[in-house]
Each structure stands twice: as C-alpha cells, then as structure tokens.
C-alpha cells in the first residue's frame, strides 16, 4: 500500500517536472484570459470569454502562430480585487503563460498590476477604464478609453444634446471604477454649467437602494448618472421608478450589458449609455465577426466581446512578431511588452474590429471615441445623435 503510494508520487513528480521542460511547451502557446466569469459581472465575463475564444479559434483554424496552437487559459476573478490578486499570482507563476488578456473590472486590473509588473508579464485589459489602471507599470495596457474621458463625455453630451436637462444627480458604485468615473463626470458637469444637485454612493453588494434614492428624489433631478455596473444600475433604475423618480438615466460602459435590460425591464426605457464600440457603426470586418459570433453562440456580440476579440488579436500579433522557441520565458514575455509599447503612433497601431489601437507612454489608448446608445422598446440602439468629434464642440 505504502509502496504504491510512493510509486504514484514519483510518477506524479516526473510528469510534473516533464511539464516544466521547454520542449513540452513548444506545441502550444498559452495566453491567460482573466475576467469575471462568475459573480455580479458574470454577464460581461461570458461575452469576454466568447469574444476571446472566437479570435483564438480563427487564428488556430488559419494554422496557428508559427504552426503552434494558441491556447487560452481562462481564470475567474469573480470581479473582486482580492480574488484577482490570487488569480494574478497563479498566472504569473505559471511558466507556460506568455501574456494576459484582462482583467475586466478596474479594481481587478489594479490589484493584478503590481503582481504582473513584478513577474514581468503583459496585462492587456479589454475593459478597465479607471484612470490609474496603466499608470506606474510598463506592463499594463488597455485597448479602450479611460474614465476621465468617458465621464467628461457624458457631461458634455447632456449639455450639448439634451439641453432640457439642467439638474443632474450622480449615484456611484463605491469602488475604483464607479468613483473615478463619477469624479470625472462631476468635474466636467460643473465646468459646462450643469447643476449637480445630489451625489450618493452605494456598495456593490447592495441590492436595496431605496434609502439613497429617497434622498435623490427630494432634490428632484432631471437626469441621474448611474456610475457603476449593469446589475446594480438595473435595480437602481427599477427602484427609482418605483419610488416615483421620473428623471432620465445615464450610464457608462459598465451598464452596457443585455442583462441591464433584462433586470430593469420597462424601467430601462430611455436610458443613455456610453460604450467604447458599437457593432452597428463598425466597419465591414466587424460585421463579419458579428455574424460569425452569432453563428457560434446564438447571440449577438457586445462591446466586450469585440474588445476581447481585438485584445487576443493584439497579443497574437505580438507573439507572432517576437516569439522565439529558444528564448527563455522571461525574454518572450518581455518581447511581447516591447512589441506592444512600440505601437505608439497612428501608423504603427493595430487595426482591429473596434478601430485603430495604439498606446501612449502609459499604455493607455487615447484615440478611441465614445459611442452613445439608447434603450428603445427594450433594446439597445445607437442614439440618433453621436458626438464622435468632441474637440469640434468647444
């Protein structure tokens, strides 16, 4: 009995050591995709997983990268920063993983940042918009806009497109994403001359918002900017209507999920959202991807599927350009970073379905516009008025 156990143990050890040899890794190239596959942002996670998988499948169907298969390793951070640290640690110490697509939630990207930096592995986020996500680390990138831009944009949009809304309120999720976005909105709202009548916070785990909504209602705002994620935003919209609030709702990319419509029901009607990408306004290639996505999964892709699709594409392009079988893991990881960092001008940028992506010295993408969606008859549609050229305004 004991002898058998020892034999098994030895066998396990040999297999384990075998897995660490570089020759084993030569058949596949592994990239981690870290996101909220469970928890209160699970609907985002599903889209990220599918978008990323679609791109990897396309690459592999076309012969892979240098004849090797691109394998995605999905790691669930549940949308929580504590969980994200554990995931980041696991990824960083996995000697087969070359780069990370993720995390999605800003708090998670921030939690992973020091760990990825120390390990020297790229973190390319398809969803984190908090201003600080890419600051202070050469290893962190993102392929969408930042909250300072998004928050300002919403305030400008209200001012320029909906002049009948004078008094606005902010109701924000008390985390990195919600607070950062609310701050940017608040500053710009004041700058363009909107009246900010109320500013209330909520906790992500909460599901009863009546207390704050009653306070907001007393201030009688014309518009409420809900700075948070779709699940809470949907409940807020619903409970606000129940409390007799008639104001128009605004949300940012965190609200951009079909689950917002499902949970909020009729209360979602008329809500304006900003989003980094709209398939309806995308190029031909985007339409092809949308069709393929729908054929594969039976649902239409959303913004996050598109950004994840592009993020995997960028990492794949970086691996294609730099990967060397002979090089050590550390060098291969570094080469991916250097490649991404070199995409710093319009000419060098990566052409994906969400448009051109290129980075500033932080790793931020500053050129991408915000699109505006509106909920009409229970569906998201492109708002009749877009403000794609903000600089032309003032």
């Amino acid at each position, binding site marked *: 009995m004991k002898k058998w156990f020892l034999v098994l143990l030895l066998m396990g050890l040999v297999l384990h050591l075998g897995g660490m040899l570089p020759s084993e890794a030569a058949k596949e190239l592994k990239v981690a995709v870290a996101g909220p596959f*469970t*928890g*209160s942002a*699970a*609907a985002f996670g599903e889209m990220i997983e599918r978008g990323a998988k679609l791109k990897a499948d396309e690459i592999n169907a076309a012969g892979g990268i240098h004849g090797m298969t691109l394998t995605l390793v999905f790691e669930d951070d549940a949308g929580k920063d504590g969980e994200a640290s554990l995931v980041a640690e696991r990824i960083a110490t996995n000697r087969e993983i070359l780069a990370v697509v993720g995390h999605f939630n800003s708090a998670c990207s921030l939690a992973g940042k020091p760990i990825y930096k120390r390990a020297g592995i790229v973190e390319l986020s398809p969803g984190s918009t908090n201003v600080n996500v890419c600051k202070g680390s050469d290893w962190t990138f993102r392929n969408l806009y930042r909250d300072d831009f998004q928050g300002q944009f919403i305030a400008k949009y209200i001012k320029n497109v909906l002049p009948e809304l004078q008094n606005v309120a902010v109701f924000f999720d*008390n985390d990195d994403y919600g607070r950062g976005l609310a701050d940017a909105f608040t500053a710009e709202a004041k700058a363009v001359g909107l009246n900010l009548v109320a500013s*209330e*916070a*909520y*906790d992500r*785990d*909460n*599901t*009863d918002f*009546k*207390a*704050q909504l*009653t*306070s907001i*209602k*007393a201030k009688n705002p014309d518009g409420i900017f809900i700075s948070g994620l779709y*699940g809470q935003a*949907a*409940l807020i919209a*619903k*409970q606000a*209507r*129940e*409390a*007799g609030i008639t104001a128009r709702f605004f949300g940012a990319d965190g609200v951009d999920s079909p*689950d917002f419509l*499902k*949970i909020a*029901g009729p209360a979602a009607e008329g809500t304006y959202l900003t989003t980094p990408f709209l398939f309806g306004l995308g190029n031909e290639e985007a339409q092809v991807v949308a069709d393929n996505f729908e054929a594969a999964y039976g649902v239409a892709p959303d913004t996050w599927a598109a950004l994840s699709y592009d993020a995997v594409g960028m990492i794949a392009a970086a691996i294609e350009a730099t990967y060397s079988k002979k090089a050590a893991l550390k060098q291969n990881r570094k080469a991916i970073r250097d490649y991404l960092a070199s995409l710093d001008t319009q000419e060098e940028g990566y052409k994906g379905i969400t448009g051109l992506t290129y980075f500033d010295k932080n790793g931020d993408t500053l050129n991408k516009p915000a699109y505006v969606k509106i909920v009409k008859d229970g569906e998201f549609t492109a708002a009749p008025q877009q403000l794609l050229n903000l600089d032309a305004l003032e």
Partner: protein
Amino acid sequence: MAQFLEQLINGLVLGGIYALIAVGYTMVYGIIQLINFAHGEIFMFGAYFSFVLVAVLQVPFWVALPICMLLCAGMGVAMDIIAYRPLRKAPRLSALITAIGMSLALQNLARIIWGARQRTFPEESIPVIFLSENAIPLPGGADLPYRDLFIILFAAVLMILLNRLIYLTKIGKAMRACAQNPVAANLMGIQTNRVIAVAFAIGSALGAVAGVMVGLREVIEPTMGYYKGVAAFAAAVLGGIGNVTGAMIGGLLIGLAEVLGAGYISSGYRLAIAYIIMIAVILIRPSGLFGKTTGTRA
C-alpha cells in the same frame, strides 16, 4: 417630512426583513450555541424556490409562499441532521467550521443549479397588489406601497406568533428548557434533538419568507444570502444572541440605522453606520440589548 416618512418606511421594511432572518440565527444559537452561517443560504434558497415556483411552474404566489416555507424548513432540518447532529458532542469550533462549509457549499450549489446571473420575478407573475404603482398615499406626498406594508405587517405578525409560540405552547416551553440546560431538559424527558429540529425548521421557514420578500423587492442571486445574512447576524448580536425578542428589535434597529444613516449622514458608509451602532452597544452591554448579563453558559 415626506422624505423622512419614506425613509422610515424603507427602514422598517429592511428592518423587518433583517428581523425575520435574525430570528433563525438566534433560535439555533440559543439552544446549541452554534452560529449557523449557512442560515443566509437558506434565505437565498427561499428566494430561488419562490422564483422557480412562481416564474417557471406558474404556481400562484399565495400558494408558493407556504410551499417555500415548508421546503426551507425541510432544508433547515436536513442540514441539522446531516451536518450538525453528528457534531453535537464535538468541540464547538468543529460545528462552526462545518457551518461555514455548509454556507459555501450551498452558495455554490445554487450557482450550479441557477447560474451566477441575477434574476427577477417577471412582472406578470407578481400579484397585482404587489406591483409598485399600487400604493397608499400618505400625507405630505409620500407613498406606502402595499408590498412594503405587507412586508412590515407580515413580519410583525410572524414575530408575534413566534413570541406566543415560545411562551405559551409546550414546544416553546421545551425550547426554553433546552436553552437553559439541555442536559437537564433531556433528563426531564424532553427530546432535545426534536426541539433543535423544530428550532431549525421555524428559523428556516421565517428565513424563507424574508427570501421571497427580497426576491420580490430586489433581485435573486447566489450571493444574496451573504450580505443580508451578515447584517441579520449583526442584528441578532445587537439584540443579544439567543434572545428572540432581541433579534426582532435588533433587526429593526439595524435596518433603520442603515437606511437613515445612508439617507441623512453618508451613503458611502451605509452599513458601516449600522455596524458602528452595533459595536457601541456591544461595548456598553457585551451581551447585547436583551441578552442575559449573567455571562454565557459554559
């Protein structure tokens, strides 16, 4: 004034829900000194049961509510028999760790069965009187939705019934006897295990009611038991854990403190305010508002 009235209603509804959950913690603790961390999950299952019955199987709401209570009561008793009864003589810490394990297991079970996404009742499956637009207008422009009124009244009625049960019936007497001294109670011919099972059943049935109410008002998700459970546990501690009246009052106080704190002090510190009040009370009266001050039984 209208605003204050509305906040008061918000607080009473939340407090009523906390009270219903807190009773489950306190009844079990009173008899076997076990903090049943999985109680929040029973509450969550109550919400899911009602969702399945009403939204999927099309059972009328008023039939579904007692079925949910029965199902959860059964679940509570089963949990006691499977997880806690074998540990009755083991060190208290073993049972406590088992309770945490139960909580995690049930939460993940719900995630496997129903998925991680949030669910709400379809509007057409909710009784018409519970739709939010049906409300009693109060002076000053505030509204009292029938649904909220029902939650407050129903919670109050259940609490009074429970109180009567504990002080006027034979099983109530047996419960009080077990709480005082289980060994002596057993020697007097009281079947302790049966009494404990009844405590689990009643606590779980009340938790189910809270789950259905929260499902109606808010949203149903696998993690809902944690957030509400922790607050309700704080309520039980505030009231003096082991004391049923204390749990009711504690629930109301925490609910009111949370809502009024968020409404008038700072919404960012919503639960923190409620917990600060709890800590302050515990500092002054370590056994809670209604707890016995004679120290805990060994």
